[in-house]
């Protein structure tokens, strides 16, 4: 046991403990149950496409909707779950007893972020499994009905589906870190969620702001577009579903670049969140 004269070292173990407890909270909050129902619902709805007799193109429809669902639901969950799991501790005053222990606030911030991210990543994993199952099941049926479309064997690249899921996990990491940042400052979880949604939308359309700030002449507008294009991450970079659904290959380096991009923004937002939370009075 530590003595009062000991120095306190920043500890990854404490971060892991907080992350693990946060994940456990998500599981016991029946969030997982809700996410599982959502994932199964999404899987079931993809079977409706067989009514349309699209042939092998049905697989593209299933993939498109699966990818879209992962993106939309995953992003929405990232915002809601992170706000609940982080701000919830402040709102319910459980953070008080926790932060009275010998832990650094940055450990708390990082631990909460990792726990929330792991929760949403699990949801992505569930959706991916459901999507792979749906695609495999329908592809097997369609191969019998429309053999001409499958001259070279199965056309769905299941590795690409997993690759897409991994890239969405990177996007969600950034979103979670943004919501953590706003939660350290917020006086209600609603504020953190609303700001998260705003950043999501602006980040999704950020690539247009980038084009616009170059093209526009008005200095005020130029400034606004420049602010949006430089100050926020470009979530559109993570929209790789279209390419993958069409059977195209992603260059291998893309995974590394997106990973680095995500790591940079996550690190920045968490660093600011720690600084903000250090100043927060409880």
């Amino acid at each position: 046991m530590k003595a009062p004269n000991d120095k306190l070292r920043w500890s990854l173990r404490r971060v892991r403990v907080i992350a693990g407890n946060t994940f456990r909270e998500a599981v016991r909050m029946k969030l997982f149950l809700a996410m599982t129902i959502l994932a199964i619902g999404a899987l079931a709805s993809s079977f409706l496409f067989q009514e349309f007799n699209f042939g092998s193109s049905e697989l593209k429809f299933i993939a498109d909707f699966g990818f879209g669902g992962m993106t939309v639901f995953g992003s929405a969950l990232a915002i809601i779950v992170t706000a609940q799991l982080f701000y919830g501790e402040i709102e319910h005053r459980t953070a008080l007893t926790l932060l009275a222990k010998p832990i650094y606030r940055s450990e708390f911030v990082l631990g909460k972020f990792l726990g929330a991210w792991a929760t949403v990543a699990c949801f992505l994993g569930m959706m991916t499994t459901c999507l792979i199952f749906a695609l495999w099941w329908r592809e097997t049926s369609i191969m019998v009905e429309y053999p001409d479309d499958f001259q070279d064997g199965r056309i769905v690249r299941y590795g690409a589906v997993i690759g897409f899921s991994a890239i969405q996990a990177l996007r969600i990491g950034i979103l979670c870190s943004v919501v953590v940042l706003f939660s350290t400052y917020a006086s209600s979880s609603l504020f953190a969620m609303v700001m998260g949604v705003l950043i999501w939308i602006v980040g999704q359309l950020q690539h247009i702001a980038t084009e616009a700030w170059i093209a526009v002449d008005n200095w005020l507008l130029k400034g606004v577009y420049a602010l949006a294009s430089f100050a926020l991450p470009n979530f559109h970079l993570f929209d790789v579903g279209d390419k993958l659904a069409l059977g195209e290959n992603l260059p291998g380096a893309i995974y590394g670049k997106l990973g680095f991009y995500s790591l940079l923004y996550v690190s920045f937002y968490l660093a600011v969140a720690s600084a903000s939370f250090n100043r927060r009075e409880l």
Partner: protein
Amino acid sequence: MTPAISIEGLIKDFRIPASKARLRAVDNLSLTVERGSIYGLLGPNGSGKSTTIKVVLGLLKASGGTCEVFGKSSEDASARIGVGYLPEAPYFQRFLTGRELLEYFGCLSGLERSGASKRIDQLLEKVGLEDAGDRRVGSYSKGMLQRIGLAQALIADPELLILDEPTAGVDPIGAADIASLIIELKAEGKTILLCSHLLSQVEAICDRVAIMGRGRLLREGTVASLTENAGQDSIRVDGLSTETRNSIESLAKERGARVSTPSRSLEDLFLELARDEGDES
């Protein structure tokens, strides 16, 4: 030896939202809590006790003055090594069982994994929750929450315990048990900072007491010094007949003495001071 808590000229202001005004919650407070003592911090609601405790725990930053815990600035996270805290009306993660909660806080407090299970069992028994350890904290009664709160404060065998209303919501027997536990902890050499509205309890177990009002220190000292009346002596009369007792009383009055109840309780003093503060406002 460095005191457990050393507060010098502590000031804490809060900014009032949408206004440039500030609310001074603690105003130039100075006190010292020596190691191995039980120190009572008293005051009516809004007197600044909780704010002071939060500054000691690093949950709030001082606006002025200094606050040290075992010689380290209270803003330093390492100052909380060896400190256990039971908040007033404690809130804990409802989804955890009692055992899991203690394990969680134990890990965060630096409790070694190898001895954790044994320590948790000991503490659950000590606070009378050995049968409720596997139930979720969300199902606990108020009294049980206080007990588990005490257990988590003790999980890492801290040198300094800060207890804010430890007997709130606990039945009289439970309250007596907690008081005995506190005395036991003092005998082990621990330092306890105790906030309580049960003045009789504070009077019985505390070595020193500070009474706060409107953010300021009103009185501070040993219980005995606070409760004795200066310039007065007491003569204890036991087993005398009423006649003899009356004779002694008459003699004293003849010599110019006032005969009355020689000492007052802490509660009397508290109420007197609280009323004075109220009148001043």
